[in-house]
């Protein structure tokens, strides 16, 4: 029980620094709120330019539809050809829609004249261009369907899409909970990462080592306070997601805490390892940032895991953040229970055990040089 004294000391040190308390509990909340609203994959207010060279009623109707959609923001409507290239270069709009008169063909059976539509997209932001293209297909497709209905004609083929768990495809619902997982990672890895190095710098580590504390006791005393801080942090984050983002968890949050404990075991072991091998707080911070970025990029938060090339995909298997993000989304959106993700929890605990045993080995080898 000697480690409890170390626990208490760490706890006191954290709360004695006012800046630290602000950094730990206020900054993450602000970050969650900002990140939740900023890191969104859906495209809204896409600046669109319209070049209407057609005099048809239908082109006007389409323009009205575009104008009434919150997805697009019409920047200008021209009735003469413009230099599209230049408009994209200047960034005035990300998409140009061109309506032209259509040459009538003999086979056409419509009683009205349809314009010819061309969509030009600025691909320098590939992601939003792709999403915008999807919106345009949807919008024009829907328009064609209504036209056919108006003419009493059957639509030959139309897929019926039903979206489960997040029908409005609101990215706040997918990003919000995941950001809580990200915050948990950042706070806990940084705190443990610099923990032991600070003791090295102020020469108190020698005193710990000369005392009867065993490496396991030092590990527990150094990491458990950070785990407690992490769980408090996660609770605050969840409260933000529920109250401010208005995302109601469908599953049992108790499972999330269970998953978080397994996750913290792995992430704190890694943080402890960083602290052991670093010679200064600066070095430790560098290691922490590098690890966090790697974890973030390979977590499925920013890009789907399926997008990662197979050669690199194995790296995601040893990334604990990947599992936590999957679990947090399953609990919040799908309402899944333990039966769906117990393996993930075991993997995180397993990764934790490997990192923990490795850090003990490093401790015995490198701390006593």
């Amino acid at each position, binding site marked *: 029980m000697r480690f409890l*004294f170390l626990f208490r*000391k760490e706890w006191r040190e954290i709360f004695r620094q006012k800046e630290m308390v602000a950094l730990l509990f206020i900054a993450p909340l602000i970050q969650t709120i900002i990140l939740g609203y900023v890191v969104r994959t859906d495209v809204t207010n896409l600046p669109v330019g319209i070049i209407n060279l057609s005099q048809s009623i239908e082109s006007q109707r389409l323009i009205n539809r575009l104008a009434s959609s919150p997805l697009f923001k019409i920047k200008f409507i021209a009735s003469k050809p413009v230099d599209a290239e230049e408009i994209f270069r200047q960034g005035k709009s990300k998409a140009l829609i061109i309506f032209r008169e259509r040459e009538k063909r003999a086979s056409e059976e419509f009683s009205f004249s349809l314009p010819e539509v061309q969509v030009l997209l600025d691909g320098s932001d590939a992601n939003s261009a792709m999403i915008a293209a999807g919106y345009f297909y949807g919008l024009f497709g829907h328009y064609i369907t209504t036209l056919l209905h108006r003419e009493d004609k059957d639509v030959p083929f139309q897929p019926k899409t039903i979206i489960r768990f997040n029908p409005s495809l609101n990215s706040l619902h997918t990003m919000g909970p995941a950001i809580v997982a990200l915050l948990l990672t950042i706070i806990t890895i940084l705190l443990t990462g610099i923990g032991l190095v600070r003791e090295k710098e102020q020469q108190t580590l*020698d005193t710990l*080592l000369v*005392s009867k504390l065993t490496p396991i006791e030092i590990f527990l005393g150094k990491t458990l306070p950070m785990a407690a801080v992490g769980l408090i942090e996660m609770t605050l984050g969840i409260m933000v997601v529920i109250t401010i983002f208005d995302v109601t968890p469908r599953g049992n949050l108790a499972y999330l805490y269970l998953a978080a404990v397994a996750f913290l075991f792995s992430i704190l072991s890694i943080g402890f390892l960083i602290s052991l091998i670093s010679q200064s707080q600066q070095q430790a911070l560098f290691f922490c940032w590098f690890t966090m970025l790697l974890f973030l990029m390979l977590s499925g938060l920013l890009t789907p895991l399926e997008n990662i090339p197979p050669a690199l995909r194995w790296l995601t298997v040893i990334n604990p953040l990947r599992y936590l993000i999957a679990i947090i989304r399953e609990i919040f959106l799908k309402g899944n229970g333990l039966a769906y993700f117990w393996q993930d929890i075991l993997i995180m605990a397993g990764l934790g055990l490997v990192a923990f045993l490795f850090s003990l080995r490093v401790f015995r080898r490198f701390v006593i040089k």
Partner: protein
Amino acid sequence: MISKFSLSRDYKKSTEATKISLAHQEKAKSQIASSSAIEVHELTRCFGSFVAVNRINFSIRSGEVVAFLGPNGAGKTTTIKMLTGLLRPTSGQAFILGFDVEKNLPQIKNFIGYMSQRFSLYPLLTAAENIEFFGGIVGLRRQKIKEKIEELAAIISSDYLNQPTQTLPPGIRQEVALFAALLHDPPIIFLDEPTSGVSPERRRHFWMKIYDLKCQGKTLLVSTHNLDEAEYADRIIIIHQGKIRFQGELASLYEQEKVTSLENFFKQMVSEPKNGSNNSSY
């Protein structure tokens, strides 16, 4: 140590440090056991190609106070770290009360107290909280820790007790750090440059404390680069460039090396042709 505190106050009244030293040596001689507390055989430590400590040998008897002298970078801290198990020797052996330091580290931790150069206390915690922590990690019971804190309050003023140690004057910090290092009542005490950065008055006061400890039968190895402190010790060991240059009583140094003062001996020693680029000063 604390019970003897009043005694040290009496010493403080005396102005002649050397007189006290001699009186104490006489008094302590009867107490010195013949067994050796610390034994060092051919102890060597290299950092890459740099030999920090080069095949040193010495032995310290139980109850002895030994000043470990040498310029900065001479190998004092490296030696003390090897004796406390904080560094592994490259070769050679060290024994504490007959236990091999490398093989019996857990047992040895019961016997040794260590105070590092920078009075390693937690700067954000108060003196009392530091004692609570250090007492806790050496396995003291809560009641005992409470008693120890009260004991410390009697030494430093109780105003200081509840101040973060970073705001305490260096002398008080040193006092608290020494108190913390002795919480588990170890028979052998290593003090690594305990008097650096404190006033000469404080230094003298500190050595009075060392005498108190000696009277309790404790063995002390005190490293320093302040030459005047050599006079307080029973014996001195001088290390330079990783090698022991002299060990014995101060008086015999003057005889053996034909020098009139320790300072002259040091001047002579550091002006010798250097091995490598060890740019030492004292």
